[in-house]
């Protein structure tokens, strides 16, 4: 079993597949394919069309015409666009590191089926249940520099809490904290499920072998968990980049442009200014990055296929 699963699968695969399975398997895929592609295809294609059109809905009822890559050029030379990109990188980068680390640790620490662990696990995933808008406002109260619980607690232990939401750095840290608080449970849940799927006897064998816990983790569990960890990483990264409701209600993108993220930027372009051409172009720039990240994960996983 210490050999990668791929070699085994391939060997088994050769004599295993039955031709008459194929129609069934195709039928399995069809519903999902229809729902996802059929319903989402038009909006997406439309958005691709818009990215090369000059169209501000509030100035004109119909697109004003083809402008080539002008929208893209304009976005890429817009200083606010880059400011938003920088903010997004800071916020998502910070949140991602914390979430992955804490999530994996907690997944291990809450392993097991005792009622106590079950209760703790249920408790720990609760932050995800709160509507992002409400979570943002809740943390607004908590981080309030005068009347907030966080600074009150800090005060009690003799630390003067910072102006969380009134400074650029404070606001970024606040958004990172909110994202981490709300979404570490996602990592915990997915990784926890993956750990639960690792055959227990595998670990027992390793234990009998006298492998230390750390070595077992490094050589047996980590390789098995890797695909899922990568998936979680990419999902959390893109989700965090796309998050809007919580930032909207926690900092409103501010102060100034301090927590104005790329998604916030696209949102303002698209649904506040109705500048469809520019919003579509920025979305495709975002997708270029997203595609790259997804591609990277595929590349890491490719040996498994």
């Amino acid at each position: 079993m210490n050999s990668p699963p791929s070699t085994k699968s391939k060997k088994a695969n050769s004599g295993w597949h039955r031709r008459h399975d194929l129609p069934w398997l195709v039928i399995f895929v069809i519903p999902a394919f229809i729902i996802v592609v059929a319903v989402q295809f038009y909006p997406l294609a439309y958005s691709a069309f818009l990215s090369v059109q000059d169209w501000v809905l509030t100035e004109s009822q119909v697109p004003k015409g083809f402008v080539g890559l002008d929208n893209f050029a304009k976005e890429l030379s817009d200083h606010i666009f880059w400011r938003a990109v920088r903010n997004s990188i800071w916020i998502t980068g910070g949140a991602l590191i914390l979430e992955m680390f804490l999530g994996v640790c907690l997944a291990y620490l809450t392993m097991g089926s005792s009622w106590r662990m079950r209760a703790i696990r249920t408790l720990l995933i609760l932050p995800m249940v709160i509507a992002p808008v409400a979570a943002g406002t809740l943390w607004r109260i908590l981080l309030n520099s005068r009347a907030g619980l966080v600074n009150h607690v800090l005060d009690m232990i003799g630390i003067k809490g910072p102006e969380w939401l009134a400074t650029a750095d404070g606001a970024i840290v606040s958004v990172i904290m909110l994202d981490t608080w709300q979404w570490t449970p996602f990592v915990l849940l997915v990784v926890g499920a993956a750990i639960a799927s690792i055959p227990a006897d595998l670990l027992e064998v390793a234990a009998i072998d006298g492998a230390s816990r750390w070595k077992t983790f490094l050589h047996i569990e980590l390789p098995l968990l890797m695909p899922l960890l990568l998936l979680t990483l990419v999902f959390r990264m893109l989700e965090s980049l796309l998050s809007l409701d919580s930032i909207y209600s926690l900092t409103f993108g501010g102060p100034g442009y301090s927590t104005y993220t790329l998604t916030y930027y696209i949102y303002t372009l698209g649904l506040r200014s109705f500048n469809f051409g520019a919003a579509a172009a920025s979305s495709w720039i975002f997708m270029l990055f997203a595609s790259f990240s997804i591609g990277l994960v595929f590349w890491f996983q490719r040996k498994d296929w």
Partner: protein
Amino acid sequence: MGRNKSPKQRLLALLHGLILLVACLVVIIPLTYLVINSVKLPREFLTVPPTILPSEVTFQHYQELFEDSKTLRHFRNSLTVTLWTTGITIVAGTLAAYGLARMRLSAMILAGVTFVFLFIRFYPRVTTVIPFFLVMREMDLLDTVWAIIIGQLGITIPFVTWLMLVVFQDLPLEIEEAAIVDGANVWQRFWRVVLPIAMPSVAAAAILTAFLSWNEFLIASSVARRKASVLSIAVAGFVSDKGIQWGPMAAMSVVMIVPMIVFALFAQKYLIHGITFGAVKG
């Protein structure tokens, strides 16, 4: 493990407990504060220092919430949307993942199909809600829960498909071989052999899908008006152009948490199935 623990083990156990305690506190304290806020009088918000224990417990925010006939409708709509979205997503996503995992597609094609799914999943929705709105208008689905469900499925199915694809790919094919020898068809193998083993991940996927659907705001707010309006829109309604109604918002947030806790507790049962298939692997 023996009954007599070494000092080192004791220390580790203590540390383990301590970390979990801190983690739980970090989750519980804000949530408790939310609950406290929901029973606070308006004047006790934003006091300096913060009012941790309200001088007087009031249920006025809850009372107002439940006296409003719209709350029930929002609740029903949210429940309908979440149940259908989760149900359809889990069935369609899991089946699709199994199909893709066992089709023996070339790596390139498989990657291509998955990529299309994910591309659709992560395309910034703020840019597609208006075209989506127009599609729903043409389908005469505006202000129906189905418009919301269809919109959300575009987000949830790709996630579940990818998650389960990774899980199924990791399952050794040997475990299905015994079933093949027994003459089981592909459906039977999926249902009786593969699914039970993958149950923890299915449960995790279901929990995540339900949470996402329950709280989803953007799609819902762009196609729902009145009849199909949901809780996540209502909770945003406490933020007006001139301030926030903290109390009612806290009360509604608390109300919104309850059904999801029930669901999470229910799904927990499957999260720890932990079937061993070492025997099959030999």
